[in-house]
Each structure stands twice: as structure tokens, then as C-alpha cells.
């Protein structure tokens, strides 16, 4: 296997180690901890009173529009990073191109701002 793939294999291994640590601790815990089930213990916590209505009650997600903006800016970050590593190589030409790119994005943010999207609705 090439070094390149081995490096990414290490990334996978680290993820498994993280999950393994959780499994290990929970496994050790299951040997040590007591189990005395009582129905009251398994009621959802709602400040000490009996829960009311559905547990997945409807609530207003006020910032879903931010999620859309986030997608836009995150994609932009993907484009900025490769350029950022090569700023020297492109010189003034690349700089002007990038300024145009970022200004267009900033205009997008400004538009959202003026449209009161960033306000708490």
C-alpha cells in the first residue's frame, strides 16, 4: 500500500480508536454498575413534573435560513483554500480574481443582511 493511502488508513483507525474507547468504557461500566429498574426512572426529565404531550413537540426552527447561507459560504471556503496556498504563484492576476470572487460573496451576505434574513424572526 502506498504511503498516501496508509496515511488515510490511519485517519480511519483513529476514528475506530475513538469509538473503541467509548465501547470499552461502557463495557467496563456494565460490569460494575447496578441495575435496579423502576418505571419512574425511565420517564423523561421535564423539571420534575410528568411530561406533557409528545416528546418531539413542534418548535419553531428560527435559523433554518442560516443553514442555507452556511452552505454557500462553506462551498466558497473550499474554493478559497486551494488559491490560498498558491497566492505567490499567481501574483497580481490571481489577487484581482480572488478579490472579485470574495466581493461577490460579500455582496451576497450584504443582500441577505438588507433582506433582514440575519435578523431574529
Amino acid at each position, binding site marked *: 500500500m502506498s504511503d498516501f493511502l496508509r496515511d488515510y488508513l490511519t485517519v480511519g483507525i*483513529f*476514528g475506530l480508536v475513538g469509538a473503541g474507547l467509548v465501547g470499552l468504557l461502557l463495557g467496563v461500566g456494565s460490569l460494575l454498575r447496578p441495575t435496579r429498574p423502576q418505571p419512574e426512572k425511565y420517564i423523561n426529565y421535564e423539571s420534575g413534573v410528568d411530561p406533557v404531550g409528545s416528546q418531539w413537540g413542534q418548535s419553531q426552527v428560527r*435559523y433554518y435560513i*442560516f443553514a442555507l447561507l452556511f452552505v454557500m459560504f462553506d462551498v466558497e471556503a473550499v474554493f478559497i483554500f486551494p488559491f490560498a496556498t498558491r497566492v*505567490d504563484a499567481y501574483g497580481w492576476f*490571481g489577487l484581482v480574481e480572488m478579490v472579485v470572487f470574495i466581493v461577490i460573496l460579500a455582496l451576497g*451576505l450584504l443582500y441577505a443582511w438588507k433582506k433582514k434574513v440575519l435578523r431574529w424572526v
Partner: protein
Amino acid sequence: MTAVELSYWQQTVFRVLGVLVAVILPAGGFVYVFLFKMMSFMQSRLGPMEAGPYGSMQLLAEVGKFLQKEDIVPEKADRRLFFLAPYIVLASTFLLLVVMPFGPDAYFTNLDTGIFLAMGLSSISVIGILIAGWASASKYALIGGLRAAGQLIAYELPMVLAVVGVVIQAGTLNLQGIVTAQHSGEIFGFGGIGNPFIITQLVGFFVFLTATQAELTQTPFDMPVAESEIVTGYITEYSGLRFLLFFIGEFATAGAFAAIAATLFLGGWAVPFVDLDDDIMNIAGPLVLFGKMMLVGFLIFWVRFTFPRFREDQLQAFAWKFLIPISLVNILATMVLKVAF
């Protein structure tokens, strides 16, 4: 250079042991030094003193206590997702450390995508938190989970954009390369102490630390776990050992982000005047990085214990109307200066 060549599986065993230390040591250190002791001193009390000298064994006592707690899963909860959430949160913490360099030959992987990969992997924890909030089947947990998701994505952008400034200066995404660039850098022709990017990227450092604070849901940005209104948010229904796992995840991530900030802005494992290829740095490097990490951690927790909580709308407005615009301006200024000089 290592004298003995190790095969891949041997290296992997060392790396696995290394990452366990790199996760547990900062997590334990942060909790003891900052959460137990620093917070106590700031509030004119002593903190834990009974277990071991100056209460230094308190952490072991805590873990022992949590191991013995009964495992309670609410009956209405979505059991499979409820069990899954801690795995995702802790796995994302471990993945964050994959690209960290600790010395010239002491690193887990020397990936060229470096910091970009770390930023990407760090955002996996959002999914774990959202799952935890949803699966608990509790109103507090649901609201907390949604708030956390909204906050984490809002502050991920300033964080990523703050990193861009450093990448422009260093000209590479590789963290080892960023350390080298700071060590061999010059400030207006003066190369004595190198160029720790905190000097030229002060705005970036400020934005990065603020965003870190929010990503960790530490106090000025702790709306998702605001105890006075939604109990503890997405971890309300998690008790005993599963709560401890979220807790370890939170502080280990704080350690990882502090280490990343130290590498990006404070010169990482390198020390001025000491040659980068010096063998001694393989041993001294991790200690130097640990020291710088504790310094950044001190800043994070100082802010945590000092400021009152932001309201949810202030929190979103701060990210979108202040941090993102100034980090965009910072990128533009850095680019112009980089090309001009």
C-alpha cells in the same frame, strides 16, 4: 531520524497509544487545572482538596464514581440513535488530532491536506450532537440540539476563514509546513524569533479563538446547554457514564482546538533559536506544544469564567454580522500584503 525502522502495524500501535495520551492528558489537564482549580480561585474558594495532594486525584475519583452509576435510557428515546451519539462525538475528537505534529518526526500522519482535513473532521461532532438532541425524546434536548447545530455551523465559517489567513502566509495546508514557515519566517527582515503568525494574524487569532469558544459551547456561547432555561440541552437525558463520555469529548476537543490554535498562531512545537531538525525536539516538541496549548486553554477558560451568556439572537448576529465580515477583510488584507511584499 529514528534509528530503527518500524513496520506499519508497529507504527500504528505507537500512534494509537499516542493519540490516547493526546486525548486524555489535555482533557484531564484542562478539567483539573482550569475547571477545578482556576475557576475555584477566581471564585475565592479552594476547589477539590481531599483526593490526593491538592485534590489532584479528584479526576480518578470522578471517573470511578461515574463507572458505578446506573445506566438509564428514557423509555421514549430512540434507543439506537441514543447509543450512537457518544460514539460519533468522541470519534470526531480523535479524528481532530490526526494531523497534529508534535516534533520533526513525531506526528501521526503528515497529510498535505492538514488543517483543511482537521476543519472538515471537526464538524462531524455537529451530527453527533444533533443525534443526541433528537434521540433523547425530550423537549429540552431537542431545543438544545437544534440550538447547538445552528451555533456550530454559524461559527464554523469564521473559524475556517480565520485559518485561510494563516494558510496564505504559510503557503501550505500541511501543519508541519505551517510550523516550519513560522520558525523560518521573518518580520520585516528580522528573523530572530521567526514569525509566529499571532503577530501578523492577530485578527485571525482573535476570530479563531472566539469561534473555538463557540464551537466548544463554552460560556459566553453556551446557549445550547443554558442550564437556567433548558437544563443541559442535548445532554439532559444522558446520565452516568454516557454523560461522562460527552464531558470527556467536550474537554478533549477543547484541548485539540487549543493545540491547533497553538500550532497555527504560536509556532507549534518549535522554539526560536533551536534547529528544527534537532533530535531533541522529538522529545521537547510535545512538551513545548503542551505548554502553548495550556496557554491557549487558559485564555479560553478565562473568557468562560468571566463573561455572561449571549442571547441566542445576539450570538447569531455576532457570527454573521461581525466575525464573518472581519475575517473576509482579514483574508483580503493578507492577500494584498502577501502579493505586494
